[in-house]
């Protein structure tokens, strides 16, 4: 992508400098994969490998959860972030899994991520935060913004053209469509979705909000739920996962993207987002780390339905 040519050059230069100077011990970014339409995660510790870094409209992976590998390490790591990725970093900061001293956040302009066929990903069309919500440095002229905003930086025009954020207003469409169904239809729909789950936990592994040291779905000892992929246990997993990230999900959509069984996980996350906003007021997780997530606080005059 020609708009990003200079950004790519700058990324490599910056990564090299950061590693050579010892400012950081490692850099998270992307590299070109085996196909032109594949840009996959890359972690480098060696300045000589900085030239492998690449960033384009296929660099969809949110790398923030990878920072968890170093959560008990004092050394600093640099990470390149798009808007959605930056909210993952804020998630980890707010959850105190990393400290600001452990991470150097470099914001990038997002051209809008596309699939192999070149069409814009739904999550990008629905994106409200295409710009980093926080960054220590930026490349490509992108502006840091904690407010929903239009794409900025060198790819602003390209992003606008492909329609980044153009369907932000319709992001609850799938939720609304399901809400319109009868109870029996909803039950059948979700039973079908839950039955597909193979409990690979890819959704959890990629999620910056799923940052527990020990996930309750890994520990047998307590016996919350069977590891067998039965309808019952899968439903327990799906609902519990959703409740655990309720009010904390940063809306990056990675869970749904990585799901090998195409389970509409974001529909559940969005449903919770929608209800949280309606019940407890506007809240965007992973934007401002000083605002406690909605389930960790309360108002004495919250809606009352349990009388």
């Amino acid at each position, binding site marked *: 992508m020609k708009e990003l040519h200079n950004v790519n050059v700058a990324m490599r230069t910056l990564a090299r400098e950061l590693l050579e100077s010892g400012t950081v011990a490692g850099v998270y970014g992307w590299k070109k994969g085996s196909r032109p339409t594949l840009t996959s995660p890359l972690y480098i510790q060696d300045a000589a490998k900085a030239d492998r870094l690449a960033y384009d409209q296929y660099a969809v992976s949110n790398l923030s959860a990878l920072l968890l590998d170093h959560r008990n390490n004092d050394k600093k790591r640099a990470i390149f972030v798009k808007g959605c990725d930056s909210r993952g970093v804020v998630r980890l900061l707010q959850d105190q899994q990393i400290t600001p001293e452990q991470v150097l956040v470099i914001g990038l302009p997002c051209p809008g991520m596309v699939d192999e066929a070149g069409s814009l990903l739904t999550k990008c069309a629905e994106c409200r935060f295409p710009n980093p919500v926080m960054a220590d440095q930026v490349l490509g002229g992108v502006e840091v913004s904690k407010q929903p905003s239009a794409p900025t930086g060198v790819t602003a025009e390209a992003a606008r053209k492909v329609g980044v954020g153009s369907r932000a207003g319709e992001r609850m469409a799938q939720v609304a469509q399901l809400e319109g169904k009868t109870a029996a239809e909803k039950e059948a729909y979700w039973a079908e979705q839950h039955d597909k789950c193979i409990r690979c936990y890819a959704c959890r592994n990629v999620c910056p909000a799923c940052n527990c040291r020990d996930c309750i779905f890994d520990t047998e000892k307590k016996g919350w739920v069977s590891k067998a992929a*039965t*309808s*019952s246990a899968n439903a327990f997993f799906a609902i519990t996962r959703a409740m655990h990230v309720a009010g904390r999900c940063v809306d990056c959509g990675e869970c749904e993207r990585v799901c090998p069984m195409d389970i509409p996980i974001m529909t559940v996350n969005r449903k919770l987002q929608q*209800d949280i906003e309606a019940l407890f007021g506007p809240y965007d997780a992973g934007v401002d780390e000083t605002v406690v997530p909605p389930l960790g606080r309360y108002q004495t005059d919250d809606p*009352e339905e349990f009388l």
Partner: protein
Amino acid sequence: MSALSPKSGSPADCAVTEGHVGLPVLDPPPTAAPDTGKTKNGEWQPYIVGFACNWCTYAGADLAGLSRMQYPPNMRLVRVPCSGRVNPQFVLRAFQKGADAVLVAGCHPGDCHYGTGNYFTRRRFLLMQRLLTFMGVDPRRFQARWISGSEAPKFRDVVTELTEQVRPLGPNRLWREVEP
């Protein structure tokens, strides 16, 4: 407890052998465990698990007893220190194990023995109710109520209403564990 333990009192559904190891007969649908609700005179009865905070709702239920109020015997109360102790996972567990409905009950907001517990309960379960409904659970099957230590009549009425609301819905098989 073994999943194979007998369904005592409903001999029609299981063969009781010595040592109280019973095997369910192939009566229930193969995808779900037997219905927990018992049949009385051939009629199915809803089976409801209630979580009650020690300080208000449990005390309210005690008062209902002291006042000799009569209500349907369909609910079993699990005592917890505070409604804020009720993990949504307990609710799911109850459904998995065969409850036809679940009630979470505690002190009225503002009266929590621990000051703030039920404010979090309220947020958590307002959200969970909506999520469960979204997934096809009939909202009558999962309810939350504030019942104070003096509200014995309310406790009686809530149990009665809940039982009568769930009865027409029949046994809940959604998310029921399949017995091995």
